[in-house]
């Protein structure tokens, strides 16, 4: 049984039809990427899965349970964590406080401390900046903090929305190393990216989203060699 199974998801913003029946599957421990151009509906899909946006139709099954249109806090409590686009760090809170908010659904204080320490082990860079305000970090560090914060709820699945956005190229490679490392820790990851080149290298399976519809899906090794995709997304003529 798949860990996350999305079937025929339809989303409207007012009269605008943003998702026109999207279906994807993620197995336990998988690293799957969703790529597509600006406005294809990638962020809308993640927002719907995490309960921020409501779906018009379709089902979302997570661990066998229907979670479509549940409130965000209920979704988080079930083990889904969403690292939003543009990092969205709480800039006036310290690094540590940002992490604590990430563990919001965990009531046990000792467990939260444990998770904070785990984040600092995973991202030593953040440990150095523990007491510093989130807004004063560099873009790459903020992205690390956003990912660490996403892991604080100890989720089964992690959604990453454009982790490479607006970050120095050297740092992007580092971030992607972390993504692979987190996946190896056993976390299932759904990676949404515009940087198709990189995403197709690290992920196992890929979906291509175009104006609200999945147009291609295949193992990434196949997508990388597909001529149409190379032309459209990898900048190869």
């Amino acid at each position: 049984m798949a860990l996350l199974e999305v079937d025929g998801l339809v989303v409207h913003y007012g009269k605008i039809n943003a998702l026109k029946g999207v279906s994807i599957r993620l197995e336990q421990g998988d690293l799957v990427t969703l790529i597509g151009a600006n406005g294809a509906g990638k962020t809308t899909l993640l927002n719907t899965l995490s309960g921020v946006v409501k779906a018009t139709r379709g089902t979302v099954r997570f661990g066998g349970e229907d979670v479509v249109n549940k409130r965000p806090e209920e979704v988080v409590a079930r083990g889904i964590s969403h690292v939003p686009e543009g990092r969205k760090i709480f800039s006036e809170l310290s690094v540590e406080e940002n992490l604590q908010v990430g563990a919001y659904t965990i009531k046990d204080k000792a467990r939260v401390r444990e998770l904070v320490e785990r984040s600092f082990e995973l991202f030593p860079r953040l440990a150095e900046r523990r007491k510093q305000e989130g807004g004063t970090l560099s873009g790459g560090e903020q992205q690390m903090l956003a990912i660490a914060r996403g892991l604080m709820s100890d989720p089964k699945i992690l959604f990453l929305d454009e982790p490479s956005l607006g970050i120095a190229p050297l740092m992007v490679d580092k971030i992607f190393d972390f993504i692979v490392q987190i996946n190896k820790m056993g976390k299932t990851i759904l990676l949404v990216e515009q940087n198709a080149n990189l995403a197709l290298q690290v992920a196992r399976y890929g979906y291509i989203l175009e104006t609200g519809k999945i147009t291609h899906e295949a193992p990434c090794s196949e997508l990388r060699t597909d001529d149409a995709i190379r032309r459209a997304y990898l900048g190869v003529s």
Partner: protein
Amino acid sequence: MISISRKYRLVLQLCVGLLLIALPYLLGNQYFVRIATMIGIYVVLASSLNLIIGFTGMYSLGHGAFYGIGAYASAILSLSLHWPFWVTMPLAGLFTAMVGAFLGLATLRLRQTFLVFGTLAFGEIVRILIMNWNSLTRGPMGIPGIPVPSLFGFSFKNFSNYYYLVLVFAALVVFLIARLYRSRVGRAWVAIREDEVAASTMGVPVFGYKVLAFTISCLFTGLAGAFYGHFVRYISADQFGMNESFLILTMVALGGTGSIIGPVIGAVILMLIPELFRFLAQYRSVLYGAILILVIVVKPEGLAGVKGLFVPPSGTARFHFRKQKIDSAAEGQAGGGAA
């Protein structure tokens, strides 16, 4: 703000505490003691409004009305049922909190601009209601003869005694708010202020926390109303109108949104200015308006503030010549944190 080391901060706090305790003796004059007492009440009002504006990043222009609801509730209960202040005061607070919770449930899903109008309209409705509900509030005649509280035969009629009563109350409220700010609840509020969507994806029930902030703020505001009514002993509708809401707002804005000490500073300054410039009494509203505009243009986070109502979210356009300065100021502030 300059960060003060722990040791010095403790010494400073002790000095301020001693000064506040000795104040009635230092001032001597009952008139000054009266002003000091009023400052205490406004410290509570500004600090509770800061919960909404500074911590959670919402708006309320109806706090004058909540202040009035607390004052009227306690006055009516003690005059008609002859209950002691120690019963009517907490009841007035709870009643105000309840009204606040209902208003919050009804309006807090509104976008910011609409929330401003919603709370503003609510304030006016309350004022008009008080003005016209003759059987309950005596309408435009107001309520005179509100009893002075006493405790085990000890009366607070003397201004100095009442000053101490308000001092304890204000210190307690500021302390409680500071504790809340550093708690799980406080972090959730700040997270909502910083980014509502991000907060909700972390599992913070945003709407619930907004209503909670509104309710707690109204609780303290209502209590302050009760303390005010039993102090001045005569209340009328015009004391709790829109001007009052704007006065409290200006205190928070001037002192600093989102910090603990900011609203206290704002309350002290704005209560002292009219007393120092009594000859300008009729221009008081003009002065408050000018201060509010000045703060927004020159120092949107206020004298000791962190962030809040008047600081636009990063990325939005603002005066270009200020932009860089504010960014560097924010970075400089990073080490210090909230006072």
